[in-house]
């Protein structure tokens, strides 16, 4: 079995992540932040250490680093937490449903609206498009660090500058960026939403909401936090405000181990390795007549992309193509990848695409085996 679906979730994880997860489940069995008997304190301290590691990685304060179940939950907290009557949002034309649906839902609920801007390979054009979409009542600009379909990166620093100039909140969906691309509050982002289980190499069921605190968020979930229990009001301090109920304790602790792994190898080296594999795939697949590539990661274009390549096999829709590859031992996802906007952009809304997304543990030999298999597939 050869796994090339790392954009959905990375697999395998570093050995230490499994070890820490197993150990946390077995050893840190008490509920964190609720009690002061020794087991509860040890558990709370382990969660805090992981929070510190994650905070440091994103240039944030530990208390502003909130553990969520996934990136989608973090995005819902951020988007709906900013919504109000007549709200207006700006989003890119490559957004995942994790952004599009909460924005759409918030606008329906509050009688607001949203505008799409076109992301382009040219940074200046992208920023101009985004600037044109901003209105006097725009509350936030939300965009992915990179498309989960075609890998195209958004110019985060330039968009952060734009948002700061216009006084609006800048939210980055870092599901495909955190751990490989430079995503940090130090770049002027106000809120980062990240998946813990993708390029941060944590377990599934983990995510992060990281804020610089400049745009206070309303809550969409309230409940027990272990603090201020005498009050009917949700705490106004972080992270408690957004961590109602028991968190995924073992997952949160193991996420810290994943982030430590990324920090040790460095995001730059991981990105370089994965982009090299994408280049190898694009060069090889470009020579196979029956394969159509929708984004080509080549030496001259690699700076534009995160390590994701979309393609199709002639005569097959993407689901069929990925099934055929699956039967032959290759794990690649087919379909719309929950991102219909991106497919509309590249003209694949009807067919979807097969997505090649290598990880830190993928090898050139595995890419060559996939290319060999693609050559063998007959319609």
């Amino acid at each position, binding site marked *: 079995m050869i796994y090339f679906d790392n954009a959905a979730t990375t697999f395998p994880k570093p050995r230490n992540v499994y070890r820490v997860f197993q150990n946390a489940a077995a050893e840190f069995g008490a509920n964190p932040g609720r009690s*002061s008997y020794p087991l509860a304190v040890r558990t*709370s301290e382990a969660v*805090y250490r992981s929070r510190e590691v994650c905070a440091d990685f994103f240039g944030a304060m530990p208390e502003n680093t909130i553990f969520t179940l996934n990136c989608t939950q973090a995005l819902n907290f951020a988007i709906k937490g900013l919504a109000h009557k007549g709200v207006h949002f700006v989003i890119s034309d490559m957004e995942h449903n994790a952004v599009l649906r909460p924005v759409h839902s918030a606008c329906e609920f509050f009688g607001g609206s949203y505008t799409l801007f076109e992301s382009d390979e040219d940074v200046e054009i992208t920023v101009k498009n985004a600037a044109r979409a901003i209105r006097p009542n725009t509350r936030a600009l939300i965009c992915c660090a990179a498309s989960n379909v075609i890998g195209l990166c958004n110019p985060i620093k330039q968009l952060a500058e734009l948002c700061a100039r216009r006084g609006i909140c800048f939210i980055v969906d870092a599901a495909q960026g955190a751990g490989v691309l430079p995503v940090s509050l130090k770049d002027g982002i106000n809120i980062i939403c990240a998946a813990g289980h993708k390029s941060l190499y944590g377990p599934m069921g983990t995510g992060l909401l990281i804020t610089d605190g400049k745009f206070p968020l309303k809550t969409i979930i309230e409940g027990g936090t272990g*603090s201020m*229990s*005498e009050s009917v009001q949700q705490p106004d301090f972080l*992270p*408690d405000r957004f961590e109602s109920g028991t968190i995924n304790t073992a997952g949160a602790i193991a996420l810290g181990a994943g982030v430590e792994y990324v920090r040790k190898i460095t995001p730059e080296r991981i990105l370089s390795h994965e982009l090299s594999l994408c280049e190898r795939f694009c060069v090889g697949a470009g020579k196979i007549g029956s394969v159509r590539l929708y984004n080509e990661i080549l030496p001259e274009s690699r700076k534009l992309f995160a390590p994701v390549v979309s393609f199709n096999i002639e005569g097959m829709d993407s689901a069929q193509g990925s099934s055929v590859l699956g039967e032959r031992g290759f794990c690649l996802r087919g379909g719309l990848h929950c991102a219909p906007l991106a497919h509309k952009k590249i003209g694949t809304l009807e067919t979807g695409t097969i997505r090649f997304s290598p990880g830190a543990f993928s090898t050139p030999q595995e890419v060559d085996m996939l290319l060999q298999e693609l050559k063998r597939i007959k319609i």
Partner: protein
Amino acid sequence: MNINIKSFTTAQKAAGLLKSRGIRCMVERRFGRGTGCGFSLKITDPSVSRREVCALLGSIGVDCGANST
């Protein structure tokens, strides 16, 4: 000496700072009538004054608070 802090995470952050300065302390769960659930940073180091501790905590935005003892 006890410093009352509403958030466990803030209490941990405060404890981390004090420990890095060699000041012995621990985070405890607190419950007080009328004050509800919270946390307390218990300073077990006799060599340090409340004033010094509060000045250090103030540098990371942690208020010693009126209810601290």
